[in-house]
């Protein structure tokens, strides 16, 4: 089975600095959700950025391929790549408070790209925006379209962002910690909404998060990252029942749950960290790049 998104041996480094991603490979099939899990600095967000072509300039791609819908993005000239990504992929960003342009009304923020990039007519774009806002259960769509972002609540803004991501029927969506900034009750609604929309539209989803609880609710499969390397790739149920890598087991043990008040939390043991570091190092030496 070939994935809709297929990343092969992706390697990134800070210009003149350390390596950030070490030969990362993963695939996401159409209609499936793949989780990227890890602690801060593990490189999980960087993968999403590499796919969408929004890496900071300080980071350079030193190896690997990113196949999106049968095309290797990294082999395309920049302009072509931008168009390609714009037409097939979309992003649901982390912070709904900063992800909408504060000086523009909601309507145009959804419709502009349909008109500018995809060449829709204005009427079509407006109709589409209204439909999709309706689909994410936004009441009084006409008023919201005319509103500025600061006039909406955080949960409402995240709904708008989800609508905007699905507006052009992308085949892949990268969700970068989409609920981290929200209260748990709102998080639940938003996660359900993402699930519902993804199922209805058959979109492939790359879901970046640090929260194993969230992963278990949304994903079909996941990759665990440590220091820029995938230490374990697994189907979801298998991962939670029989995690293989010591780091995965440590991560699970360190996550508190209210069902288990007395089981003491296990911080990731130093031996495990040491082990992973060695593994990463050996891997790096085999591949022949500096750590």
């Amino acid at each position, binding site marked *: 089975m070939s994935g809709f998104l297929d990343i092969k041996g992706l390697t990134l480094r800070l210009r003149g600095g350390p390596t950030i991603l070490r030969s990362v490979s993963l695939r996401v099939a159409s209609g499936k959700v793949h989780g990227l899990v890890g*602690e*801060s600095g593990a490189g999980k967000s960087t993968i999403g950025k590499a796919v969408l072509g929004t890496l900071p300039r300080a980071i350079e791609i030193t190896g690997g391929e990113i196949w999106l819908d049968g095309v290797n993005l990294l082999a395309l000239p920049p302009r072509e790549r931008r168009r390609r990504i714009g037409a097939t992929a979309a992003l649901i960003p982390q912070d709904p408070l900063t992800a909408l342009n504060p000086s523009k009304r909601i309507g145009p923020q959804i419709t502009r790209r349909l008109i500018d990039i995809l060449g829709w007519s204005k009427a079509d774009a407006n109709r589409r925006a209204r439909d999709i806002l309706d689909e994410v259960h936004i009441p009084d769509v006409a008023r919201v379209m005319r509103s500025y972002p600061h006039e909406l609540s955080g949960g409402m803004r995240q709904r708008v962002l989800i609508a905007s991501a699905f507006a052009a029927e992308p085949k892949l969506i990268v969700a970068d910690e989409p609920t981290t900034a929200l*209260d*748990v*009750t709102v*998080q*639940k609604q938003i*996660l*359900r909404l993402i*699930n519902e929309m993804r199922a209805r539209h058959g979109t492939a989803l790359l879901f970046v998060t*640090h*929260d*194993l*609880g*969230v*992963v*278990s*609710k949304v994903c079909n499969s996941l990759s665990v990252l440590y220091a820029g390397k995938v230490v374990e790739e697994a189907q*979801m*149920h298998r991962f*939670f029942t029989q995690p293989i890598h010591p780091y995965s087991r*440590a*991560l*699970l*043990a*360190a*996550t*508190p*749950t*209210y*069902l288990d*008040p007395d089981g*003491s*939390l*296990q*911080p*990731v043991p130093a031996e495990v960290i040491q082990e992973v570091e060695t593994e990463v190092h050996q891997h790096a030496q085999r591949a022949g790049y500096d750590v």
Partner: protein
Amino acid sequence: MYEIRNLRLSFPDMAHKPLFGAPPQIEILKGLSFDIPKGVVLGIVGGSGSGKSTLGRAMLRLLEPSSGTIRFDGTDITHLSEPELRPLRRRFQMIFQDPMSSLNPRRQVHGLIAGPLRLHGMEDVTGRVSRALDMVGLPQNFATRYPHELSGGQRQRVGIARALALEPDFILADEIVSGLDVSSQAQVLNLLSQLVDELRMTLAFISHDLSVIRRLCTRVLVLHHGKIVEQAETAALFDAPAADYTRELLAAIPLPDPYQEWA
């Protein structure tokens, strides 16, 4: 330790100030009453805008309540002036959410912990600093580091050490693990629960995360829109939540378990 009765706190709403006259007040805390007996670890939980951080700052008298009373160990501190509060301050301490902001960037760890000790005329400052570092599991040579030379978890330990060194009767911890990765979070939580056991501390622990609260606290107080919707012993609350909001909150938590009834 703490007796809080009908506590109210409002801020002026400058955005809706009329042309003349006083601005309207936004009430953040709407009449809270609860006690924190000695030796209790109280979890204060709530979503954003619930007023949990404002409550914490009012308890430490960083904010002055609009009405109601706060008694600390029998003393009414509701409207005490800053000089009157100062001798009492050693006895209630706080650990802040963001150690990058709460640790003065121009002081080394030693100075950060020793400063308050000297202020209160405590003896054997160096010994106390070194014991405090021991207690939070930081090596002694960290004493000469600056905050920006530490990791997030280490900074938060310095915050804990600073509060502990004064040997206070009460500590307030405001969202102290929300900025940390799960592994450092687990370390800090373990440390805190171990210290609670050893020192028989009275602690109020503010958090938005019920899983963390359950791990640490003996009693829980659930805040919603500036009101207490439920307060109960931890086990009772998790076994049989009484308030609708508590149930909603519990049901919304995604457990790391694919078989959980959730949707």
